[in-house]
């Protein structure tokens, strides 16, 4: 009873009394959004779904933002009354998870409280949130941005990281960025633009914990301050673009690198050329021991990251192409990616009446070529900068999208994926998969449309109960989606392992959208698997049952 009263009380305070009062007395605007996700799951031994003792699991969040001119303030309520499957149980509970006040003018901004921030590409610092992955490493402290003159931006942060319902660690950082063109009047509107930046981030962590050196009676002498420095550039000239960032991290023995003292670094480069209807992009990356977290002993692999090293493969959207998602191995990897897009114009041989879009992407990621020195309490290993280690992941996808008539649109995709299970932590043979997807949209009239999707995946992997990788084998999938205007949709899909695999995952979803409000209901089976967003991954257990979600903003 008490809990309910307090919940109701908090809710009224949050979205009733305080905002109305604030708005009435002070003027300004109150906006916000609400997301509610719920799940009821039952046991299914084949897909490995367990019964949920709580019966109903739900995640709720509400952001309330108050804005009045240059001033803004925000609060976020989060409630995990039985966190959804896949969320860490540590989220259990409810309360105000995030609050801030902020003052922003064009050239100056200061935020106190929780904030999200990124320096450059995030290789030294990225405080961000991904609510579907249950990741929120917001910093709570002070964030300052200052633009002393046009083209120069300075940022400074100091704060502690969110960790479920606590804040912990200590992170400090500064960042500077200069748009070189802005410094000289005659260069301002030049075709060639150059921006340079640099950042420094340091974490402090007490050294009083005793971490065994692997020899009884000894402990590691751990650095209390660990710093990471990065320099970056962004050069663009018409259709050409060149971006690069290099980051280096000092000694940081931690759970991810098994407490070795080797310093870390990452080099990332991207070169592109594009003009209307055509583009090419090549990226290269080398990561070496760059996991930078505010607690060296943190047990959850995805938590408490200070920096972010993006994955260098394409984020696929079709189910079978994304079945083996790749996440950056912050301990070490090398990668190359090529991306090519071309639009055959209307009324040409390959373009036909409406034109044809072709999109080709390929990536190859390997481990580092390392020579071991020792285990914890040593420098760990040496590695040659240019030579590669084991193959981790490779893929190729060719997508052709074509409007067949004013009512029919077809997208056909061929994909090839090779995947080394070692990146998910277990030894095994490489998986080689071929994927074919046909995606057809038929716009019947202004109000009605139907989308059909058929996917096939052929794999050399076979399901083996001892490894229990439910992705193995050959699969087919079908999906039908009916849309009534932009308000309603119903979709029915089934994934079925027809050879060397197990599982039959069917799903029925109904959704309704009106403005910013969206309600979705689903019933069916959800595969156990790794979902990755932006290169960060989380393991989601299988579920079998009902899911519903409501989001709205105001």
């Amino acid at each position, binding site marked *: 009873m008490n809990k309910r009263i307090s919940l109701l009380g908090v809710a009224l305070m949050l979205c009733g009394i305080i905002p109305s009062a604030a708005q009435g007395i002070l003027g300004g605007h109150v906006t916000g959004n609400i997301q509610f996700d719920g799940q009821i799951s039952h046991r299914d031994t084949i897909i490995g779904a367990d019964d949920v003792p709580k019966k109903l699991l739900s995640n709720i969040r509400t952001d309330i933002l108050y804005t009045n001119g240059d001033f803004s303030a925000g609060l976020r309520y989060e409630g995990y009354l039985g966190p959804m499957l896949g969320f860490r149980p540590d989220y259990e509970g409810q309360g105000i998870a995030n609050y801030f006040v902020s003052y922003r003018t064009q*050239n100056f901004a200061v935020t106190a409280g929780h904030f999200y921030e990124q320096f450059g590409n995030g290789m030294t610092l990225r405080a961000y949130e991904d609510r579907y992955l249950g990741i929120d490493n917001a910093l709570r402290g002070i964030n300052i941005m200052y633009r002393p003159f046009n083209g120069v931006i300075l940022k*400074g942060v100091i704060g502690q990281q969110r960790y479920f319902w606590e804040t912990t660690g200590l992170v400090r950082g500064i960042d500077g960025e200069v748009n070189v063109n802005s410094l000289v009047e005659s260069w301002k509107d030049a075709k060639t633009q150059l921006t340079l930046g640099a950042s420094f981030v340091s974490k402090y962590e007490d050294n009083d914990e005793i971490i065994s050196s692997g020899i009884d009676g*000894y*402990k*590691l*002498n751990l650095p209390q301050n660990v710093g990471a420095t990065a320099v970056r550039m962004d050069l663009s000239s018409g259709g050409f673009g060149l971006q690069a960032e290099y980051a280096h991290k000092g000694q940081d023995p931690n759970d991810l690198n098994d407490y070795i003292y080797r310093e870390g670094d990452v080099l990332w480069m991207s070169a592109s050329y594009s003009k209307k209807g055509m583009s090419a992009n090549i990226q290269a990356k080398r990561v070496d021991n760059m996991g930078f977290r505010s607690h060296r002993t943190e047990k959850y692999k995805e938590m408490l990251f200070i920096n972010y090293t993006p994955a260098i493969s394409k984020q696929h959207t079709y189910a079978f192409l994304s079945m083996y998602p790749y996440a950056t191995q912050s301990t070490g990897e090398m990668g190359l990616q090529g991306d090519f897009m071309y639009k055959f114009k209307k009324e040409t041989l390959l373009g036909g009446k409406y034109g044809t879009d072709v999109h080709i992407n390929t990536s190859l990621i390997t481990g580092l070529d390392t020579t071991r020195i020792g285990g914890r309490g040593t420098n760990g290993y040496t590695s040659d900068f240019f030579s590669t280690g084991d193959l981790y992941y490779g893929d190729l996808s060719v997508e052709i999208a074509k409007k067949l008539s004013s009512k029919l649109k077809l997208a056909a995709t061929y994909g090839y994926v090779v995947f080394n299970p070692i990146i998910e932590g277990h030894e095994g043979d490489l998986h080689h998969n071929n994927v074919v997807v046909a995606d057809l949209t038929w716009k019947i009239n202004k109000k009605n449309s139907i989308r059909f999707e058929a996917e096939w995946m052929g794999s050399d992997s076979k399901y083996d109960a001892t490894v229990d990788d439910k992705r193995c084998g050959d699969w087919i999938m079908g999906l039908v989606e009916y849309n009534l205007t932009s308000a309603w949709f119903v979709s029915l899909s089934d994934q079925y392992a027809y050879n060397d695999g197990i599982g039959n995952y069917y799903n029925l979803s109904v959704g309704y959208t009106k403005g910013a409000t969206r309600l979705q209901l689903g019933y069916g089976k959800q595969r156990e698997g790794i979902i990755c967003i932006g290169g960060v991954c989380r393991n989601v257990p299988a579920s079998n049952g009902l899911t519903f979600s409501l989001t709205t903003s105001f």
Partner: protein
Amino acid sequence: MKKIFQLFVSVFVFVSVFAFVSCDKIEEDNYIVYAGAAGKWYDGSGVADKSQRAIIEKYTGVRCVNCPTADEAIGVAVGQYGDKLIAVAIHDSSNFTKPIGDTPRLSTPDGETMSQFFGVRDAGQYPAALVNRASTSTGWDLFTPTEGINSHVDNILSNNATVAVAVDSAVINNNSVDITVNIEFLQPVSDELSLTLMLIEDSLVVTQRLHDGSDNENYVHNHVLRDVITDVWGADIDCTGAAGEKRVALFQYKPESSEWNLRRCHIVAFVSVKNSKQILNVADCHVR
């Protein structure tokens, strides 16, 4: 307003620069540090040499003019008793231990602790010695070890050993030492017992003041206490104390100073009664 901003930012940048210059860098030799010798005890295989041995702890100093005489007497006794007598030279923090000229100080904090505990510092008479930390009805059986060493040692060696001790060591990674201590109960012991490990170094050439007041720059100091590896009063021995019980413990030790030459060092291990500090038996070994 703008000026305030600029001032604010200048201060911020200034503070930041200082805050961020500090970034810890640990030298390779110091990645691993000693966390305290908390050896665990296991069932052991016994001790081959079950003889009773004695340990003479001598409190000395480089400015103590009578100490070389004691060194000589102890040297004679050690030669006479062979491995049955183990000597340790302890330099506490008294004025007698102040280095002469530009020579290293041999004092140790552990030595000072013991010197105070056994009343050597209060008495202020050097040299002073204890054999097996024996006591009389009036207190610690301190004596001047220029004579009478034999009677003290014989007193100990005439007993049948209650517990046998053996110690062995091995140098690992060139910078730390693995120490194995075996004990075997020959008679039942009901007292709580402690094991103390000491690191002692031989052949240290440090200026010593002689009886005639002259300084000998080439004086050789032997069995100088460098460090009590365990806590100064020893580590608890996990045992029942029943006759015939055999226990073994492993310790790892990283010398605190790289100036200590491990090849000239011994490890001394002794079992003592926790409350009375009385030493039941002792063993030593070269660091290899």
